[in-house]
């Protein structure tokens, strides 16, 4: 750094090193970085536990021995089939979708500067719902392999529509115009969905089970199909993180720091759409992950999106898997869908969070 801040009169080196050694400035930043890495490893450990639970625990009681047997040397017993064809795919799907929803939710709240924002605000959920029922109504598609693409397309179209509608103004997309456009679009699509399901009982029958949100009953193939979109969304999201940090200081400061505001917003919205669109299409709307998890992540790591995003992703997967496991246990021999479980667990948690902490400003 030849053009140092000190200019012609360089600072005495001892001051700078004192700054580092004294636990302030750069030194403190490094120390916190270590804490954050340690925390991330802890969350990763949690995720491993949640994953194991999701494989080992289910509506059908099974010894750990049997689970292990099914995993390493399956012989086609009933237990083997349950583990390999049901628990493994839904666990994998839970991981993918949980990460996608957690990261998507954190981005969403950041870009709309709105701690209430969940991906539904961009019209993703209602867009997917509408195209799903439309596919069933107009084309008679009831196979999930078929309508998952309808759902994905609907999510993309709706959020692109919201983004365009929210960006017509001089200043480009702002948090307020995006939120208003999203609310208008969601209301419109929701009522169109209602109209379709009232006209077609078959569409309603699929819709009502899709709408509660579940990761059960989907096989590996489905998860693999949307995986590329989730991966692309995650890449975009992490590329977006430094820009989000600048934008958090307001658009003027972000611009003066050399950030291209419109580009950052566009990339961010693209990432949100890919992540949540893929999740919603496969699993239906699972709302609470994207809403709650970023708040927890911020409480742990502070205001740095380079850390909020990975924490949100991992915590999202942990939450989704644990909720899914709980849903298998509470209603034996049946089970509750993960969407319901998340609402039942997440809502009180969220309300407690709101009551306990001072409200965040983003």
């Amino acid at each position: 750094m030849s053009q140092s801040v000190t200019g012609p009169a360089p600072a005495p080196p001892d001051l700078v090193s004192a700054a580092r050694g004294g636990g302030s400035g750069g030194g403190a930043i490094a120390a916190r970085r270590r804490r954050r890495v340690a925390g991330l490893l802890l969350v990763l450990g949690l995720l491993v536990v949640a994953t194991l639970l999701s494989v080992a625990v289910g509506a059908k009681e099974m010894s750990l021995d049997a689970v292990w047997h099914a995993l390493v040397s399956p012989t086609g017993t009933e237990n083997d089939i349950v583990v390999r064809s049901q628990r493994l795919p839904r666990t994998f799907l839970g991981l993918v979708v949980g990460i996608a929803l957690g990261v998507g939710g954190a981005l969403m709240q950041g870009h709309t500067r709105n701690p209430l924002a969940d991906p539904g605000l961009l019209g993703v959920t209602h867009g997917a719902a509408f195209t799903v029922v439309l596919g069933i109504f107009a084309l008679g598609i009831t196979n999930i392999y078929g309508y998952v693409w309808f759902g994905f397309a609907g999510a993309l179209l709706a959020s692109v529509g919201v983004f365009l509608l929210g960006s017509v103004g001089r200043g480009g997309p702002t948090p307020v115009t995006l939120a208003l456009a999203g609310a208008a679009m969601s209301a419109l699509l929701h009522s169109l969905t209602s109209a379709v399901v009232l006209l077609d009982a078959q569409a309603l029958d699929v819709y009502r089970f899709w709408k509660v949100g579940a990761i059960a009953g989907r096989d590996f193939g489905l998860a693999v199909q949307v995986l590329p979109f989730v991966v692309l969304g995650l890449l975009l999201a992490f590329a977006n993180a430094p820009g989000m940090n600048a934008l958090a200081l307001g658009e003027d400061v972000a611009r003066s720091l050399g950030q291209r505001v419109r580009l950052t917003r566009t990339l961010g919205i693209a990432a949100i759409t890919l992540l949540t669109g893929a999740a919603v299409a496969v699993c239906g709307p699972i709302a609470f992950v994207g809403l709650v998890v970023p708040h927890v992540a911020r409480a742990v790591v502070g205001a740095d999106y380079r850390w909020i995003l990975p924490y949100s992703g991992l915590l999202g997967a942990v939450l989704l898997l644990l909720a899914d496991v709980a849903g298998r246990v509470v209603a034996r021999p049946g089970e509750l869908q993960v969407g319901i479980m998340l609402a039942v667990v997440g809502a009180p948690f969220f309300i407690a969070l709101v009551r306990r902490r001072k409200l965040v400003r983003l």
Partner: protein
Amino acid sequence: MPGRPPLRVGPASWVLRARALAVPLVGLAVVVLLMAVNIGRGEFPLSVTDVLNVLVGGGDRPQRFIVLDLRLPRSLTGALVGAALGLSGALTQTITRNPLATPDITGITAGAGAAAVSVIVVGGSYGSLTGQLAEIGVPLAGLVGGLLSAILVYLLAWQRGVEGYRLVLVGLGAHALLSSLTYWLLTLGDVTDASRAVVWLTGSLNGRGWEHVTPVAIALAVLVPLTLLGAHALGALQMGDDTARGLGVRVNLTRALLLLAAVALAAVATAAAGPVAFVALATPQIAMRLSRTAQPPMIASAVLGAVLTVGSDLVARTAFGAVELPVGIITAVLGAPYLMYLLVRRYREVRA
């Protein structure tokens, strides 16, 4: 105040603004006209003049029967429900200082929905409630469920007073929980029950009679004057708690009372017609832009709510041939694009 002619009657004085007066007046005329058209449509069509004639006391007997006993209650329910929702939305948006806030933020429609749907599902699939009981039970459950969840949300949001922002967050949590439960309930019964539940959840005026008109009318008659009395304090609340206190407004009390009024309005309306979508969200914003005021105008929001609801019912009844859609679908299909158009136009103007 310069440019605003004051109106003084004895000790009372108001500032008049032409647009703020014109919007509700024109709106009122439109409501009456829409109602007349709506009443005229049906198996025995009547002209607008016939309908208006009956309404002012004329017409022959069959005409009077068709208008007064069969069709007027439905339109009147629509107008009153729309007015209640519009006013309720205007209050909520002002109190929370959030253009996206609706009475929903208190969890009221979600609570009403969960309660009503459970009556429909339990009554339908498990046969423990007979048809008649379910007919009365659904609106009653809606009213009780809505009020209960609103009270619960308010209490949960209370921490040495209720801050609008915290209320929104707590309400959001409750809303998500309750609507999740509602959709879960939908998966329990058979498809016909689910279909009935969706109709209710969308908001419908089908088969509404005088027994639906009366409660909403009473609620409006009591709450509208109270709201208008409190409304002058709303301008101060809009500027934040500290400023409002400085202007001599008792912040917590005012907000609690006005919110209670908003909740009561929405609860009664929801019990009568189901949660008619979008009226509470869109009409205050539309009224605000039409009146060119800084915050949602109360009366204009109520009147425009009635316009939107009655107009939508007219479309829902007549536009699709034999199929009659629930009014809530049309309110959203009409209201949402208009809100989008306003968004676009406003920014075009700024840019030009």
